[in-house]
């Protein structure tokens, strides 16, 4: 996907002014409510008319105020999954799914009905009227319906915010699977950082109708201009771990950072039957403590050695980036920084309780706490 966006929109008193160039196959749009996230998506679909600007997707101009060009929504091939699903109540699940597919000439259908039904596990719902669906089922059907229109770009507008934690955890793996298997480029809007980081670490941060930051999550988290906005929803470390060795007789699994060399440090987790697939684990920066040496006689069992990469000050708190094989964000107080005389390059140990680790759902698996016991 290559998306050029230069837009100015007005909605009542609200103004959105955006100038962006996006490449890659996924990005998250993050920001507080009222930042203009949904307005931006609506302008992309063509449902909302910008005041001026230009939109081009993969080289095709969809909107250009100077040329008075405006491709109508139905010819943009930009799909959208709405927060409230918006299923057609007069059609069955199958009727909803096929709505966009039917409007497409057969040779332009890149995504096939059976494939989507199987991927989203909605085969058992096809004949049902949509009013009998649960919240999670509705969002899956809405996602399938958008996909079957074979969009060139799929927009997800807070697709999970109407769902509770449990349902969210059910949908996220589907989203990821769809994104990976079908290769449809995604733009996901959310005010929940965790939801976005599930799918991509490319972020666009919107605030008060402007782009406050744009880039990789870890870089943005270190950027004092936007870390405040990110922090408002709670910063997260997302660790991708790969099981190295199963020891059911000891009740543990050894895990290593995905992509790390074979001799790198491993972490030990209680045994769980998760197979050999990689798992994503979230760890909040304020749940990590720093020590200058390994601490004995302590209930905290996770101790990872590392080196301070950089130190950033935001408000009264300090954000350290520590490399433990992967970069970890660590949130400490200014007093701790002074006491430990922390400087970039210094060797430290990162300590965190087992229960601070929360697994983000991986493919086909429900999330659970995966306490990691020792290093």
């Amino acid at each position, binding site marked *: 996907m290559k998306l050029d966006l230069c837009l100015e929109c007005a909605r009542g008193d609200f103004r959105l002014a955006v100038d962006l160039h996006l490449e890659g196959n996924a990005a998250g749009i993050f920001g507080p409510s009222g930042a203009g996230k949904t307005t931006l998506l609506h302008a992309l679909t063509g449902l909302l008319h910008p005041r001026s600007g230009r939109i081009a997707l993969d080289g095709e101009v969809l909107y250009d105020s100077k040329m008075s060009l405006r491709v109508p929504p*139905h010819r943009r091939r930009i799909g*959208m999954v709405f927060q409230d699903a918006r299923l057609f109540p007069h059609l069955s699940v199958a009727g909803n799914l096929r709505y966009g597919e039917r*409007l497409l000439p057969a040779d332009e259908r890149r995504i096939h009905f059976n494939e989507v039904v199987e991927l989203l596990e909605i085969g058992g719902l096809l004949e049902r009227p949509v009013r009998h669906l649960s919240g999670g089922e509705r969002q899956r059907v809405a996602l399938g*319906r958008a996909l079957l*229109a074979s969009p060139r770009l799929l927009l997800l507008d807070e697709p999970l915010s109407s769902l509770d934690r449990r349902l969210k955890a059910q949908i996220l793996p589907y989203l990821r699977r769809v994104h990976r298997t079908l290769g449809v480029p995604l733009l996901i809007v959310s005010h929940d950082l965790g939801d976005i980081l599930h799918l991509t670490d490319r972020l666009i941060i919107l605030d008060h109708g402007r782009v406050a930051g744009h880039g990789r999550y870890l870089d943005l988290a270190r950027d004092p201009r936007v870390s405040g906005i990110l922090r408002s929803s709670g910063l997260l470390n997302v660790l991708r771990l790969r099981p190295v060795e199963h020891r059911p007789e000891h009740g543990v699994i050894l895990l290593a950072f995905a992509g790390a060399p074979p001799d790198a440090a491993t972490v030990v987790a209680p045994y769980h039957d998760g197979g050999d697939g990689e798992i994503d684990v979230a760890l909040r920066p304020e749940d990590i403590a720093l020590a200058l040496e390994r601490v004995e006689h302590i209930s905290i069992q996770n101790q990872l050695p590392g080196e301070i990469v950089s130190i950033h000050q935001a408000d009264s708190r300090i954000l350290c980036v520590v490399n433990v094989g992967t970069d970890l964000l660590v949130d400490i107080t200014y007093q701790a920084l002074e006491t430990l005389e922390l400087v970039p390059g210094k060797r430290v140990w990162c300590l965190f309780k087992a229960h601070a680790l929360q697994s983000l759902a991986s493919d086909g698996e429900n999330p659970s706490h995966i306490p990691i016991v020792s290093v």
Partner: protein
Amino acid sequence: MSFGLGPEEWAALRLSAMVAMWCALAVAAPGTLFAWLLARRQFAGKGLLDILLHLPLVLPPVAVGYLLLLVCGTNGPVGGWLKQAFNIEIVFTWKAAVLASAVIAFPLMLRSARTAIELVDRRLEEAARTLGATPLRTVLTVTLPLALPGIFAGMVLAFARSLGEFGATIIVAGNILGETQTLPLALFSMLQRPGGEGGALRLMVISILLSYGALALSELVARRLRHMVGVER
């Protein structure tokens, strides 16, 4: 099985039912079209059009009948043209009765359909657009199916209103026995006749039963329709 009805009364009943049916069918399409225009479009003169379309609701039906007579009579602009081009005469036939009651019932159809269309969630229409539906297809596959219960309710209202239409009908269709004499006209004629009270009473009871039946049937069908399109209230 004459239920104590004379041939004159049977004829009036049959004619009324036929006229009302045609009336309901005649107002359906234009009523829905204008309802959609008023509910979903912005254009210059919308307010004026709105008032114009509602005029038959408040005008004296006799005035409407007289206007139709002027326009559709053999010497009128529309009537003259129809006579010349197709050799069709409207006034003083059952078609005039349909025309008269359709004009009178039009605002009822319009209001019912308009409310129904306004109640269709626009966000569903937006969803259809992002799925590749043209504006026309969106109307045909989302807006109208979801507004169907209201459109149908409008048709039933038009049917019921037509059963009771008197003023405009008598002017433009006349009161010809067996040809344009609908129930209300027959009732009126009987009341004019010495000793006709018995017949008038029977026709009054029939009118009540017919109207009641029509409304009850419409409620049943509307319920089914609402269930079908998934909007249950």
